[in-house]
């Protein structure tokens, strides 16, 4: 099976966001594989172990993303591709990212492509479905279970708390929802092996992409932090009185009930 996992390097979920001059400050921040993409990598590895084949992890970004690719290789992926746009592009949006990734994948004859359903930084969840559309293959988003049998896939999909049971066929792109699996931690031998696994770096030239073809459709004009919520009122007195006061406040002051 020819398996691809799309990953993104993102801020660690522990990080506080600091904005200055309309930009997110990255200095000193810890970076991780986007947690939803970790589910995709884990599922890719499990599929390969069950059906044979090869797992290639692909990311789009700068030199720094090599670290996250090595982590995916240490988890058990076989090869990694870094599409480095650092020198060529000042900005990326979902349209441009999908165009580039699809251009790379178009002649790879992937049986299945796995991605996270959303990246915890940008949070738009667009790139997976866009890539599938550009490749003219089917996609299913926010999946919590995947069973592949020959060219048939049985899938359970999370739809706002309910589950949808689906059947479709390969080739296919799926996006992972929490609950799909429990991503493994890289083992020490895994980390040692990962250092020797192939990691190829490509630039737009290597993909025959002209910068004009991937000009962004959207522009971020400002980034700001939400107003700090001031700590509110901790009620006092015996519990029954506090509850009475709370209900009264919600009813008359906050007017939400």
């Amino acid at each position, binding site marked *: 099976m020819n398996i691809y996992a799309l990953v993104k390097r993102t801020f660690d979920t522990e990080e506080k966001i600091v904005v200055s001059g309309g930009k997110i400050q990255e200095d000193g921040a810890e970076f991780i594989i986007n947690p939803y993409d970790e589910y995709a990598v884990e599922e890719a590895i499990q599929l390969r172990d069950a059906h044979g084949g090869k797992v290639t992890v692909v990311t789009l970004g700068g030199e720094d993303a090599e670290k996250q690719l090595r982590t995916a290789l240490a988890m058990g992926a076989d090869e990694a591709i870094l599409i480095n746009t650092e020198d060529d592009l000042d900005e990326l949006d979902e349209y441009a990212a999908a165009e580039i990734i699809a251009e790379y994948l178009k002649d790879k004859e992937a049986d299945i492509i796995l991605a996270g359903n959303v990246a915890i930084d940008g949070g*738009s969840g667009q790139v997976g479905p866009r890539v599938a559309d550009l490749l003219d293959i089917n996609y299913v988003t926010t999946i919590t279970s995947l069973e592949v049998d020959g060219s048939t896939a049985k899938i359970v999909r999370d739809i706002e708390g309910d589950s949808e049971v689906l059947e479709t066929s390969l080739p296919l792109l799926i996006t992972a929802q929490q609950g799909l699996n429990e991503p493994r931690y890289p083992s020490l031998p895994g980390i040692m092996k990962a250092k020797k696994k192939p990691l190829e770096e490509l630039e737009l030239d290597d993909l025959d992409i002209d910068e004009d073809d991937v000009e962004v459709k959207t522009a971020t004009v400002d980034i700001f932090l939400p107003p700090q919520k001031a700590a509110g009122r901790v009620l006092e007195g015996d519990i029954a009185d506090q509850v009475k006061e709370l209900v009264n406040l919600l009813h008359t002051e906050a007017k939400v009930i």
Partner: protein
Amino acid sequence: MTKKVLVLGEAREGSLRNVSFEAIAAAKTIANGGEVVAVLLGDAVASLAQEMIAYGADRVVTVEHPHLKQYTSDGYSQALMAVIEQENPEGIVFGHTALGKDLSPKIASKLKAGLVSDVTAIESNGDEHTFVRPIYSGKAFEKVQIKDGIHLASVRPNNITPLEKDDSRSGDVSAVSVDITNLRTIVKEVVRKSTDGVDLSEAKVVIAGGRGVKSEEGFEPLKQLADLLGGAVGASRGACDAEYCDYSLQIGQTGKVVTPDLYIAAGISGAIQHLAGMSNSKIIVAINKDPEANIFNVADYGIVGDLFEVVPLLIEEFKKIQNA
């Protein structure tokens, strides 16, 4: 310049969702005095058209087909693309729901267009529209503009105020006939797990439990309170990891992001990842035994106490108000 803007309406169990009315309000802003056309897709949706008009749509286009009874990206994209070809709109607004999240990027890809997802506000200056949306799960916000071409956006439930419903409004309702073919996905079954159809991301009231809930049974009083207030139950990652509840209830940086009018956090300490998923709620109530819990730093009202004592008392008090 005025614009023609489409709105994809969405029904759940036969009723239109609030987010569809909110999307009409967003479309009105983008249209800048132009026409707002609601689109309804399904096997029998024409009866819902008048309600879209009452909430501000100027007219409605329906596509009815047995293959649209259940959502599939293939079926819905074929139907919507046929409407887009007929109407040639300058904007399309979706709800940022399971359906909207799945469908809108495919439509954007087919139109080679920019799409702004998960919009919480639109600032308009004539023809220039700036979309506000959360990033880092609400730890920050960005303002995005679409450079040129068709404006596509999906709006997050509960953030944009719908227009006042006016049943006296009238508008044209027309049907487009589309041949829906080559569905690559078959929906075998939908398993309903959510309580009484109140969806977590759209709920006006969310009652969330954390590790302090201690067990699956511990969620019962929270469910009772949610039912009483017409709300939904949510959870912290801690509660999900401890298998007290399903991951589909998880609120936080991984998990759902919610912005209800009232968020009651019971037995939740308030890790930064959880706060990212709920701190933009309008009113936050924290119930926790630990007076030092971080959740009190974002709560409007706090009660230091045992949730198993507080929640049943809350149920009694709310009942009194409802009966008054």
